């Protein structure tokens, strides 16, 4: 075990997988940083510091700096993956999925199905998502709902350094296309990371805290918010069962249903807007499969049905927060059947 930041865990995992398997390549914009500039390659080493040093180690054939061309990045990565490589594509901000949507949605996600199960496309699309930096409407979005809705993609949302390592190792070795979502506000979060080979299979949620009163479902940055809220709620004697989904596709339904059957109350925290969202999806599953266990209507703390605003006050109003979670939890606990 060693204490590491999420960004370090990600860099080291990519490094380890590239060392282990020659077929692993990586593509993205400015992931080398300095190509064609006086300072030379690696002058910067990736704006998120998740690719620093890889070019020097693995060379330009495996660590590929691209022009600003998201469609061609995903296309090239998937084409390489269809023909024998394991490709890691970096989309600097998840919002840019808008530019390469066809390649992801109509191509990558569907190859295997359309081709009669004869192809494999081991591609990991790493995307940096989330609000918290006042980066406004086109650099702050959470896009997990739309990719979770796409059959053929697996969707991963780590919230700790250990999970980042275990899930990214799994993602790179997985033979299916994986969307790997890295929250920009979590990169500097520190935690214990297991040494050596460490894989976390997809579809296994992480039980963050145990409690008997409320099941709290969260992903990414929302997990930490849920933990903060749970501490406050514990002071009032309310116990939260926090489940970090880790992967939204596949989804660990069993962990969710087991917990709700025990607590009888569900609160979902979701960073994206509420319509056709992860929150509504989870609540539909629970309403359908654990209806008899529910002692109160399902509560959801989400962003509003708006784009992400710029100003500090507006972004705070937009984002879920520990306080908003506490308020919803209190409402949930005080619910009485009329």
């Amino acid at each position: 075990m060693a204490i590491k930041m999420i960004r370090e865990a990600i860099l080291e995992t990519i490094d380890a997988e590239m060392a282990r398997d020659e077929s692993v390549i990586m593509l993205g914009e400015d992931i080398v940083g300095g190509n064609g500039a006086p300072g030379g390659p690696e002058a910067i080493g990736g704006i998120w510091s998740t690719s620093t040093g890889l070019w020097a180690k693995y060379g330009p054939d495996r660590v590929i700096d691209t022009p600003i061309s998201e469609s061609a990045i995903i296309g090239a990565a998937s084409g390489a993956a269809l023909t024998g490589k394991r490709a890691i594509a970096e989309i600097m901000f998840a919002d840019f999925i808008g530019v390469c949507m066809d390649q992801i949605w109509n191509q990558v996600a569907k190859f295997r199905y359309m081709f009669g199960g004869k192809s494999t496309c081991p591609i990991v699309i790493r995307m940096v998502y989330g609000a918290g930096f006042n980066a406004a409407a086109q650099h702050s979005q959470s896009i997990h709902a739309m990719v979770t809705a796409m059959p053929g993609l697996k969707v991963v949302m780590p919230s700790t350094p250990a999970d980042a390592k275990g899930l990214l190792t799994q993602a790179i070795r997985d033979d299916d296309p994986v969307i790997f979502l890295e929250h920009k506000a979590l990169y500097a979060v520190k935690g214990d990371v297991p040494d050596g080979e460490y894989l976390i299979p997809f579809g296994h949620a992480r039980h963050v805290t145990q409690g008997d009163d409320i099941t709290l479902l969260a992903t990414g940055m929302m997990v930490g918010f849920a933990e903060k809220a749970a501490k406050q709620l514990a002071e009032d004697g309310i116990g939260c069962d926090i489940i970090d989904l880790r992967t939204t596709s596949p989804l660990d339904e069993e962990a969710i249903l087991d917990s709700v059957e025990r607590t009888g109350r569900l609160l979902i925290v979701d960073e994206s807007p509420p319509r056709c969202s992860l929150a509504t999806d989870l609540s539909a599953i629970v309403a359908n499969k654990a209806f008899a266990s529910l002692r109160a209507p399902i509560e959801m703390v989400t962003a509003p049905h708006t784009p992400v605003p710029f100003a500090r006050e507006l972004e705070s109003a937009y984002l879920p927060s520990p306080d908003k979670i506490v308020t919803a939890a209190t409402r949930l606990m005080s619910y009485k059947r009329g």
Partner: protein
Amino acid sequence: MQLSRDALLKAYRQMKTIRAFENRLHDEIALGEIAGFTHLYAGQEACAVGVCEHLGPKDYIISTHRGHGHCIAKGCDVVDMMKELYGSREGLCKGRGGSMHIADVNVGMLGANGIVGAGAPIAVGAGISAKATGHVSIAFSGDGACNQGTTFEAMNMAVVLKVPVIFVYENNHYSEHTGVDYAVGADSILDRAGAFGMKTFRADGTDFFAVYETMREVIEYCRTTKLPAAVELDTERYFGHFEGDPQRYRGPGELDRIREERDCLKTFREKVTEAKLLDGADIDAVDAEVEALIDRAVAEAKAAEKPKPEHVLEDVYISY
């Protein structure tokens, strides 16, 4: 054609306003006053002003993530811009857009843009509108944006539809940290633009007069033929790609050199004073006036009303 004294003073004032605005933002950002991701335009002023001095309110421009200069040049209110960057409710976009989405459609400025390459296709549509009224539409793009498929599609469509769109490529030699020679495969951006079937032009983007005279020709051509054209302006960016960029990709002494030898404000002053079109005192007076304006903008922005939580819900729709 010789510019009038007033026109010269106005052009200089616009460039100086952009420079002072950006220099001041650089300081305010370092103090933690301003949130978000900010890309400063200092160094490239002659491009925005050399283009926009030919435009009226019914001509359209669309900008990039580095949009403050284009805004000012097209006539956006400087105080309201500053208020926007300070996240005020009184800001140009009510504090919802910030630097990357700063816009004022009422003056024909269709927005900065957070998505590299998103502007050019929109400019084609604005060009369809502009064509009907004898105006033009300008798509400002960087040397990095020109590699985006959207930009290629827009150029081809403008040629096919015969729309008066001018694709202005501000080549500051870098897209983020990557050099233009790495990312643009062709010998030049204009080779590609030309291959789409449009006329191409080139000018020194650190010399107002070079840009202005070239753009006179380009705009006249586009207004009369109602066809698209492309312009490459060779220019320099003085600050980092974004505020906080360590700029290690630059060569030794590069920043000093471009600030010394490729400063559009210095070049302007030298040219107009040598030709005795303006004297040093005229320019100093503009400098003082502009510094006062920026001081006032910052003071007003700091005092301006902040948005309230409920304002997050406004303007998603017109009716819903």
